[in-house]
């Protein structure tokens, strides 16, 4: 099965990419997946050009196809101004709004402070709900301190949260029926289009 990580980290190395990799590894330990990673930073200009021209160029088309054909996604973004980054949203804006329907998705984010962690619940989860993806219950947020200890009496550490989210995604993947090839787009026969208008001849 194909697991695609979509990461909107901007720096190199990026803690957003690191979180995506950790999540993908954790899923791979629990389900048989072939992992590929899409770095949106590399597609930033292509995505902007898609807005301007109305079509995806070859490089962006390949990324969109990978996401569309994936059996599951790990989607990771830095939190900017209280929400997903513009680049992250832009990528999902140029994808067909049915491409993620029914697809298991693990959402995750990074930020400088744990105070922004609910952006996952208030911004990312509704975005993927709109796209009719199946988002796992555990969303993983990594603040700077999580890369050290980050654990307190009330919260699991990053490692435990990664494991829990990965298990949830793996469970969905294992239960997922194998998908056949996409059916050819159906043509609505013209008589049917006319009949729908109930023209009086």
């Amino acid at each position: 099965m194909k697991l695609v990580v979509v990461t909107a980290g901007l720096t190199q190395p990026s803690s957003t990419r690191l979180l995506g990799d950790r999540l993908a590894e954790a899923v791979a330990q629990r389900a048989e997946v072939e992992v590929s990673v899409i770095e949106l930073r590399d597609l930033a200009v292509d995505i902007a050009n898609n807005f301007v021209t109305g079509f995806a160029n070859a490089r962006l088309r390949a990324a969109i196809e990978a996401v569309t054909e994936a059996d599951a996604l790990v989607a990771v973004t830095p939190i900017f101004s209280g929400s997903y980054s513009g680049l992250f949203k832009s990528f999902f804006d140029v994808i067909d709004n049915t491409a993620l329907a029914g697809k298991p998705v693990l959402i995750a984010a990074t930020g400088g402070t744990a105070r922004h962690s609910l952006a996952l619940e208030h911004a990312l989860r509704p975005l993927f709900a709109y796209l009719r993806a199946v988002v796992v219950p555990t969303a993983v947020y990594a603040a700077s301190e999580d890369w050290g200890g980050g654990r307190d009496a009330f919260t699991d550490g990053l490692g435990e949260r990664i494991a829990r989210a990965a298990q949830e995604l793996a469970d969905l993947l294992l239960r997922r029926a194998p998908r056949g090839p996409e059916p050819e787009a159906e043509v609505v026969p013209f008589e049917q289009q006319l009949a729908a208008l109930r023209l009086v001849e």
Partner: protein
Amino acid sequence: MQFGIFSVGDVTTDPTNGRTPTENERIKAMVTIALKAEEVGLDVFATGEHHNPPFVPSSPTTMLGYIAARTERLQLSTATTLITTNDPVKIAEDFAMLQHLADGRVDVMLGRGNTGPVYPWFGQDIRQGIPLAVENYALLHKLWREDVVDWEGRFRTPLQGFTSTPRPLDGVPPFVWHGSIRSPEIAEQAAYYGDGFFANHIFWPKEHFMRLISLYRQRYAHYGHGTPEQAVVGLGGQVFMRKNSQDAVREFRPYFDVAPVYGHGPSLEEFMAETPLTVGSPQQVIDRTLEFREFFGDYQRQLFLMDHAGLPLKTVLEQLDLLGEEVVPVLRKEFAKDRPAGVPDAPTHASLLAARNDSAPVGA
């Protein structure tokens, strides 16, 4: 095979000198361009229909009627006539009138419009775009073929015993092309009626249009109008030429970089790789255009977009000289080579009239 030009009719500032033509200058320029098309031996001039600035051609049959009076051979068409928001009765009448004035040198390409608000401006709902195109054309088709029409549909007031006038010239309705950028339903509609299908084939990768045309060809055969290869296909294209390809690129780049539709986006080179745009020498334009047949099959009409993005009239006229003198004669020769015997030419009034007379009962 027919060759021609289609114009969007945009009023765009020339980015090289900051000059913006007036509406009057742009309208007159479109006419000059159409006359030039005939002078250099092209077959077709098609104008867009738009109801929002910065576009001038809101009234295509007015413009085409004027051009008809000043030309002898040029086929007059549209790209496109809004089947969604125009009253089909008025389309039937306007184009039949134009047909009489132009002695049959008229066909029409139907489309759905360039901007969402055009629907509410004409009292329609964009969510009904396809049903409007289906119903309105069903009525238009009937009005041109039946002298007395009773009609009731969802979108316009019913008609009882209505006759649209004038009747089409010689009783032969104008040939209809259906243009679509993205809707398989429109390819299906064109196939159902045995009409032509035109893919605008500019600004987007060819793969997108190949799917639509292949669907149209299959369904054309399904409805018994002929083989898929006999379906009537038109394509757009966009070119800018100079004798020397570097000169073409240097001269066109400032227009490209800020053009409406794609400006401020990809580089000229990227856009040429991704879409059918060709900027270069006449030979490069010939080579690229001949490839279209590989992707879409032998086809009937090739229209080029030559006059947008603020290019000055003088430049456009020079482009038409190159197109008419150096490109189209070669294309005519090359496209005629290996063209399978069954592939028809684009229908004209004369060919439709001849076909009608052939099939009429003897003595009728």
